[in-house]
């Protein structure tokens, strides 16, 4: 029997949801019939609106999908201005203030505290600048990810931007692909860094070459069924298909249609295509694709370029993450700036947009490591740009503990969360920087912190994987983490081994310090941290280092999820000023 959500989607979904949104915006929050809340909130996701968690009723997270994470400086400014005007909640965040933008691990933008009555105005402004929230959440084509500097980056196999643009223009808004059994995440990697992280997407295109009629042709290998959520992480599986640039839309459309027809609509827990690939295996998937969903002969896979991958790869010789100054093909430079946990104050966003414009940049880009790139800086302007005050905080040369930190949304806004995330990761990063000597050989160190098993911060592919948990300390429940080690992508992708379970949140920094001391003592030659971990088996990793309380102080140890907002003066659910009176 189709799930309840499928029933709601059958009634109203996709494009048409917009008319209803506008109606509710006009009539106010209370116009949404009380017994239809769940159905409408599910549908709103298709237009990028996600109802915030309990205690924050009537406020929405709004996601803006920016394909490849690319924007013009003008578009960036518009987003900053929208955040400044509309994304303000009843209470400020102690680290980030009253209005901010989140750059996400899928190269999108998230704003919080959005109210329905403001949606039409926000949509008008976004659309006037060629931006959209369409399909940013919900069951269909999500934001397509890849390298923001495609076409500029010297480390390039194929300029994937036209490919992504084409997929975006073809499939977003196409009714045939608007209502899938679940989310459909697509990545196209055209560079040799592996920065699209295609391995963890539902559908990925990985750079490859193949000899066709005696000629080396550049194209992509197709991988299907990756994803990290729940405790069921999968790398996308190789279905033994090579495509040229021109063939990408046909194969992508074929697979999306196959998923639409064959994905599980009865059980949402089993709906992602990763489970269909589990069930069928890659051979059957390929066969069904060939027989029913494409009308040309599929080629077998080509030679991949994985051995060149540097993005999130744990290599010691090169860091592929775009942070820093990089020469472009055209002789200009792009500068990658580190944004700690991906959150940037609205004023800073506007200031960065102004700077980018002033320096003649035509493109700013968000990366999957929650950072931002400013492209097209002329060589003669580079020093001036690097001297700008704003770059002191959003640094092109950050400390490795700050550079490598990623955190998801967590208890601040998210219903699934178990623990506080972003503010805590900021505190972890600062404490580590101030208190832990960086061992020789570590220039890059990835700590990915997720508030629950949905794994929005991609915890399984980091040097240190943190996943929200609880434990008891002196009998009292406190926020905690499961700690994993040894994950990463690169030539041989690997999920972390979970080695320390239920470590109280205030003992995590001590654990990392102790572990790094052990690495420093025992690592061989120029072994990277990831290589060091890989040399140990799981038994050796358990207990390799001890969690420990230190001078690190954690203000979020209690149950932040029980609050209506963790940083409010009066945190009790009953004190929640929601639903917002302004909306009625």
């Amino acid at each position, binding site marked *: 029997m189709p799930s309840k*959500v499928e029933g709601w989607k059958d009634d109203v979904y996709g494009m048409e949801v917009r008319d209803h949104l506008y109606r509710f915006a006009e009539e106010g929050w209370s116009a949404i019939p009380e017994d239809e809340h769940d159905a409408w909130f599910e549908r709103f996701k298709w237009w990028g609106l996600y109802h915030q*968690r*309990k205690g924050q009723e009537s406020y929405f997270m709004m996601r803006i999908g920016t394909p490849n994470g690319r924007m013009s400086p003008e578009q960036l400014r518009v987003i900053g201005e929208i955040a400044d005007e509309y994304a303000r909640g009843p209470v400020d965040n102690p680290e980030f203030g009253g209005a901010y933008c989140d750059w996400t691990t899928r190269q999108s933008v998230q704003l919080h505290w959005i109210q329905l009555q403001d949606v039409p105005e926000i949509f008008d402004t976004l659309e006037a600048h060629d931006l959209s929230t369409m399909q940013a959440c919900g069951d269909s084509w999500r934001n397509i990810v890849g390298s923001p500097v495609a076409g500029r980056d010297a480390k390039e196999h194929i300029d994937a931007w036209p490919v992504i643009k084409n997929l975006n223009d073809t499939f977003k808004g196409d009714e045939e692909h608007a209502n899938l059994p679940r989310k459909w995440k697509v990545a196209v990697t055209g560079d040799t860094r592996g920065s699209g992280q295609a391995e963890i997407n539902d559908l990925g295109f990985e750079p490859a070459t193949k000899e066709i009629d005696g000629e080396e042709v550049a194209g992509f290998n197709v991988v299907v069924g990756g994803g990290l959520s*729940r405790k069921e992480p999968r790398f996308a599986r190789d279905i033994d298909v090579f495509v040229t640039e021109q063939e990408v839309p046909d194969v992508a459309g074929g697979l999306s249609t196959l998923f639409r027809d064959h994905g599980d609509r009865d059980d*949402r827990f089993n709906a992602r295509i990763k489970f269909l690939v589990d069930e069928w295996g890659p051979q059957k998937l390929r066969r069904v694709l060939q027989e029913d969903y494409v009308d040309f002969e599929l080629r077998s896979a080509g030679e991949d370029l994985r051995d060149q991958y540097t993005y999130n790869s744990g290599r010691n010789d090169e860091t592929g993450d775009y942070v820093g100054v990089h020469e472009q093909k055209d002789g200009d430079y792009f500068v990658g700036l580190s944004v700690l946990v991906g959150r940037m104050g609205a004023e800073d966003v506007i200031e960065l947009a102004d700077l980018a414009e002033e320096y003649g940049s035509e493109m700013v880009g968000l990366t999957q490591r929650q950072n931002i790139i400013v492209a097209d800086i002329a060589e003669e302007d580079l020093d001036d740009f690097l001297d700008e005050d704003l770059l002191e905080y959003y640094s092109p040369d950050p400390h490795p503990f700050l550079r490598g930190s990623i955190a998801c949304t967590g208890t601040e806004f998210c219903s*699934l969360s178990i623990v506080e995330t972003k503010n805590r990761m900021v505190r972890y990063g600062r404490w580590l920087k101030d208190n832990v000597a960086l061992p020789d050989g570590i220039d890059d160190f990835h700590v990915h912190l997720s508030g*629950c098993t949905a794994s929005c911060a991609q915890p399984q592919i980091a040097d240190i994987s943190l996943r929200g948990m*609880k434990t008891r300390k002196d009998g009292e429940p406190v926020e*905690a983490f499961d700690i994993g080690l040894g994950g990463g992508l690169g030539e041989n992708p690997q999920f972390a081994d979970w080695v320390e379970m*239920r470590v109280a949140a205030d003992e995590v920094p001590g654990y990392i310090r102790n572990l790094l001391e052990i690495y420093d003592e025992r690592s061989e030659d120029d072994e990277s941290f990831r290589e060091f971990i890989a040399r140990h088996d799981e038994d050796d990793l358990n207990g390799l280092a001890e969690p420990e309380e230190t001078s690190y102080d954690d203000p979020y140890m209690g149950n932040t999820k029980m609050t209506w907002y963790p940083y409010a003066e009066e945190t009790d659910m009953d004190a929640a000023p929601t639903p917002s009176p302004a909306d009625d």
Partner: protein
Amino acid sequence: MTTSVHQLDDGAWLSVNDARRINVSDLWWLARHDFCDCEMADFLAEGFVEIGVDHPNIEGRIAGQCIECGESGVTDWLTLGRVVDPDAGTFLGVVPDSVHVPERRRRLASPSE
């Protein structure tokens, strides 16, 4: 009115008549259970997997983990609350950190709607 119950957002909460009633991330004490070997399981709720109605009770199976011993899995059926006034749709949730006894299912988990 009839009672509508479901889990949403990947099991993030239990919805009763379109109000979010019980959330993941709470700790539940489980007694006389076979979830793990602990006498009392100190169970962290991470996701509602199945929801059912056995009037007047709302019941559910929850995915999660015993934070005492680390065993993870899905519980048997737990009473999550009851609809005290079906006409008004009034729901009274149980208190997660009091003691609960999971039970094997008595009847089919088809929410009445």
